[in-house]
């Protein structure tokens, strides 16, 4: 029996609303406030977080009650101890936990009704909590990091708006609202990447990000429309909701009455949007360039929250993808292919970066690939859990990078030029970084292991073996490039700014965000490489041990993006950052350490809290008419009365293949048809019931399988570390300059350096190929057609005017005028002889006239 929804659950819509109001306040009043608006941002995010926490708490209560747990306080129980007795599912307690859905009509037009509301279920609660939490931490970080910036207030405004947008998207009740949040995020991303838009490269990067994601957004619109028109009749009839509603779409997809073609193409279209937003191949090119934005932006948007929006979308509408791509039935599908490619290519690219943020960016792309891989292979929960854990350690990594640049490398992000040996100077940062790196790599018992390993395991288990091996390879690479980055940043000899040297210009320089120019090898640290004309500081500054930094790679394409901060740090030598920076870093590092235990599959089901609260139960639910604006009454809620057939495909319990355990709830007297052997997502639901979530499979954890990935990761870490030592410190003659000596290595290097020439393809070939002819055509139209028309009109006017002038004005009009004058004068001339002055003539005229008159009279009177 579900209790009445708690206040937090009912009012979860406040969570995005408060930051939205905060945004407005900051924009309008921020500059006048004592902390220039940042206090409003912090306050709103904190309020949001509080409500999100309350919502989570009440949700967990709700789940507990639905699964028959007597104890109420979920989080308290959780915190008190990891172990608890979970009633075995075979007993039959547990059913679909109805999400708290409220919606209001936003506007109606032409028969369409667009609603706005909230859809609170486990996934939404997790994401709300995550976004609010991370946003708050990043804002605290920004207090120190962005201090003195030229657009401090707007920065916080944009951050707050972004959070509001993502929160809107996360709790969206329908696809249109999701789209709204999606677009707000895209806008904020643009604003924030281009925060220092005075430098052209930043503006270009922002535009590139926006437009690339835009390309994907076409898919979103198409997908929403396609799904709507297909689903609407069914959802209206069965559930009384529109074809936009997420609940409706999920049910429709699993109902068996949806056309598989529509589902396929809808899924493809939606996934294209995810490709754009979540940086999958081939639309991943914007993410590394997005590092042009300030580090808080990178850590918030482009690692933990915004880029997972695509993953979130797939997870949200999972039934659509499940049915559309026939995930359980095939061993290769669109999602996994793209994801696998993404994992590998971005991991490879991370090896050749000198900018620490770019390494992390490629790492993000790669990890997003993991999440997509998981989702595409039917491993829903591991993927979602990976969102959760990845947010912590990736955000922590970025904040550490920010900390390093802020206090260690004098605002430079170039690992080769300005970092090195910072572990001694910045121990806390280094420690947090290392913890997060190990988490990212997937080392036991940090969080990454529990999430990534589960993905790999489940991918293999669900029949996608090939991709499992790809994922393992990716794990190897991940370990490798992270070790390299760690080494270059924190170990070895200090170089450049890390060594306390200052480059006068580079505080204001901004290297190009990307360039096509090739470069010398990244290990061309030979001192005899001549400095070029753009040598910002005299080479004397670079001592003998600053060789990597002294080599001025000509037009270094991926040169360090320098935070062009508006204040100059007066400190010359690296030091640890202040508390405002370190506290978020440490919190996140701690979470990176322990968050894995919320779903520690190896330790048994009682450790799988995350799964319990987040994964929807694939039960057939009686179709209830739509409740708009009201909470589902417990009695009317289909979850409780009239029999819910619970089908849990928890193979862990049975220890065998996925048999559903069927049971009816204790109090349900009505006999319902038992679900089919497969359950939701495999067979159609029984008449009168709908499914909201497919029965995903969970692989059984085996240490032998886990050991596989652990070993691979360990090998990767060690191998990379050793190579780094040899290359960078010991300067092993065989390795140094390898890419210059060997054509193969050099070729590979150059291929990677140019990012597989994808940017070249997109910009020079596709865009130019399309835009150039279009531009030329437009120019032609403008010159020939439009100007031609205008000129033609003018010319016609001229010719007509001239003709009219000559013929009508001169001849006709003037002719008439002249003629009248002529007539008058000629008449006068003609009549002139009459007045001759001669009396005789006058007399003659007189008498003649008299005679004529007399004749007339006579005749008249005759």
């Amino acid at each position, binding site marked *: 029996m579900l209790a009445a929804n708690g206040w937090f659950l009912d009012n979860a819509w406040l969570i995005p609303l408060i930051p939205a109001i905060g945004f407005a306040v900051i924009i309008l009043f921020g500059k006048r406030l004592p902390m220039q608006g940042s206090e409003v941002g912090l306050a709103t995010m904190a309020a949001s977080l509080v409500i999100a926490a309350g919502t989570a708490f009440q949700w967990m209560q709700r789940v507990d009650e639905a699964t028959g747990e007597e104890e109420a306080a979920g989080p308290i129980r959780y915190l008190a101890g990891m172990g608890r007795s979970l009633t075995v599912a075979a007993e039959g307690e547990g059913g679909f936990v109805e999400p708290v859905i409220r919606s209001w009509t936003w506007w109606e037009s032409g028969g369409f009704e667009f609603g706005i509301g909230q859809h609170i279920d486990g996934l939404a609660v997790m994401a709300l909590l995550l976004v609010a939490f991370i946003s708050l931490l990043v804002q605290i970080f920004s207090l120190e990091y962005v201090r003195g910036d030229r657009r401090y207030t707007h920065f916080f405004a944009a951050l707050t708006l972004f959070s509001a947008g993502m929160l809107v998207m996360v709790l969206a009740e329908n696809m249109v609202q999701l789209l709204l949040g999606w677009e707000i995020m895209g806008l904020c991303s643009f604003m924030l990447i281009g925060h220092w838009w005075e430098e052209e490269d930043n503006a270009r990067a922002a535009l590139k990000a926006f437009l690339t994601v835009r390309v994907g957004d076409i898919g979103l619109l198409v997908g929403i429309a396609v799904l709507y028109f297909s689903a609407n009749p069914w959802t209206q009839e069965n559930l009384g909701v529109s074809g936009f509603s997420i609940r409706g779409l999920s049910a429709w997809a699993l109902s068996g009455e949806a056309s598989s073609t529509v589902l396929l193409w809808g899924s493809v279209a939606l996934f294209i949007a995810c490709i754009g937003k979540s940086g999958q191949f081939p639309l991943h090119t914007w993410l590394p360039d997005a590092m042009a934005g300030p580090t808080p932006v990178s850590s918030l948007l482009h690692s933990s929250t915004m880029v997972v929006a695509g993953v979130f979308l797939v997870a949200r509408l999972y039934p659509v993808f499940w049915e559309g791509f026939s995930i359980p039935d095939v061993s290769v599908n669109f999602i996994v292919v793209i994801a696998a490619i993404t994992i590998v290519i971005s991991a490879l690219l991370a090896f050749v970066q000198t900018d620490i943020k770019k390494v992390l960016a490629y790492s993000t792309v790669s990890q997003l690939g993991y999440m997509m891989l998981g989702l595409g292979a039917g491993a829903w929960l591991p993927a979602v859990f990976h969102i959760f854990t990845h947010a912590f350690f990736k955000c922590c990594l970025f904040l550490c990078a920010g900390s390093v640049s802020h206090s260690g490398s004098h605002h430079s992000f170039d690992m080769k030029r300005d970092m090195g040996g910072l572990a001694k100077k910045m121990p806390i940062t280094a420690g947090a970084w290392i913890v997060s790196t190990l988490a990212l790599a997937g080392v036991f018992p940090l969080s990454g292991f529990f999430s990534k390993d589960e993905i790999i395991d489940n991918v293999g288990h669900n029949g996608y073996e090939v991709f499992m091996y790809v994922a393992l390879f990716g794990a190897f690479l991940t370990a490798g490039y992270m070790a390299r980055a760690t080494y270059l940043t924190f170990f070895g000899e200090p170089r450049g700014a890390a060594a306390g040297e200052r480059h006068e210009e580079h505080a204001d320089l901004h290297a190009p965000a990307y360039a096509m120019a090739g470069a010398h090898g990244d290990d061309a640290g030979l001192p005899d490489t001549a400095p070029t004309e753009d040598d910002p500081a005299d080479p004397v500054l670079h001592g003998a041990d600053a060789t990597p930094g002294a080599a001025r790679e000509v037009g270094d394409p991926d040169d360090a993006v320098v935070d062009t901060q508006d204040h100059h740090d007066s400190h010359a030598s690296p030091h640890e950052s202040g508390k405002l920076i370190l506290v978020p870093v440490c919190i996140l590092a701690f979470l990176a350490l322990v968050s894995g235990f919320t779903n520690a599959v190896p330790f048994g089901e009682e450790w799988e809290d995350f799964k319990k609260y987040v994964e929807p139960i694939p039960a057939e639910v009686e179709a209830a008419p739509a409740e708009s604006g009201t909470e589902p009454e417990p009695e009317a809620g289909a979850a409780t009365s009239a029999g819910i057939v619970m089908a849990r495909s928890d193979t862990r319990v049975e220890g065998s293949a996925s048999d559903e355990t069927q049971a009816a709830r204790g109090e349900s007297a009505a006999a319902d048809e038992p679900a089919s052997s497969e359950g939701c997502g495999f067979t159609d639901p029984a008449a009168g019931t709908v499914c909201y979530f497919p029965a995903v499979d969970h692989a059984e954890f085996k240490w032998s399988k886990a050991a596989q990935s652990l070993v691979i990761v360990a090998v990767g870490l060690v191998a990379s570390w050793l190579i780094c030592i040899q290359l960078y410190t010991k300067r092993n003659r065989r390795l140094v300059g390898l890419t210059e000596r060997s054509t193969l290595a050099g070729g590979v290097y150059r291929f990677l350096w140019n990012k597989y020439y994808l940017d070249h393809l997109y910009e020079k070939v596709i865009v130019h190929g399309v835009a150039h002819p279009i531009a030329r055509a437009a120019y032609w139209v403008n010159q020939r057609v439009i100007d031609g028309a205008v000129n033609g009109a003018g010319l016609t006017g001229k010719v007509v005017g001239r003709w009219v002038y000559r013929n009508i004005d001169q001849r006709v009009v003037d002719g008439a005028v002249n003629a009248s004058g002529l007539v008058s004068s000629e008449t006068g001339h003609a009549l002139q002889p009459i007045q001759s002055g*001669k009396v*005789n*003539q006058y007399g*003659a005229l007189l*008498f*003649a006239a*008299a*005679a004529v008159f*007399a*004749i007339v009279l*006579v005749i008249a009177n005759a």
Partner: protein
Amino acid sequence: MIALLAQDGAELPDVNVAVNVSFYAIAAVMLFAAIRVVSTRNIVHAALWLVIVLSGMAAQYLLASAEFVAVSQVLVYVGAVMVLFLFGIMLTRAQIGAEGNLNNRNWPLGIPVALLLAGVMGWAIIDFFSDDTLPEPNSGASTQAISDQILSPYLAPFLAVTFVLLAAAIGAIVLARKD
């Protein structure tokens, strides 16, 4: 006399032969003289021919039983006006004898005009009067009757005419003064 004329074969017993004959004779003379007035080359001759015309006119007045008018005609026209004309001729003649052409250039224009006029009027007269005859008056117009008319109904015109004559006389003097 009437009986005599009637015996000559006149069908109309009341035709006054003597009057008719005299009329026709005088008319012929007058016509000839009038034509000579407008066609002669000598001005003085023209004046003299005019005298004949005027005299003939007086005779016609007598035939029309207008004795007073006839006498006035002779007195005024022939006696004063013609003298006046002759004086005028005398005073405005550049040379004696030589005249040059007394007709102007457009003199042919006058013929059709005159003929036209004559035709119209003649036709009108003949058409109107046809064979009417003038009655024979019992007596001529008595002077008393004339004076009665002049001094009573036509007193105003009479006085006007006196003024006109006065003005004409003064005007002529003023015009012709030599200073």
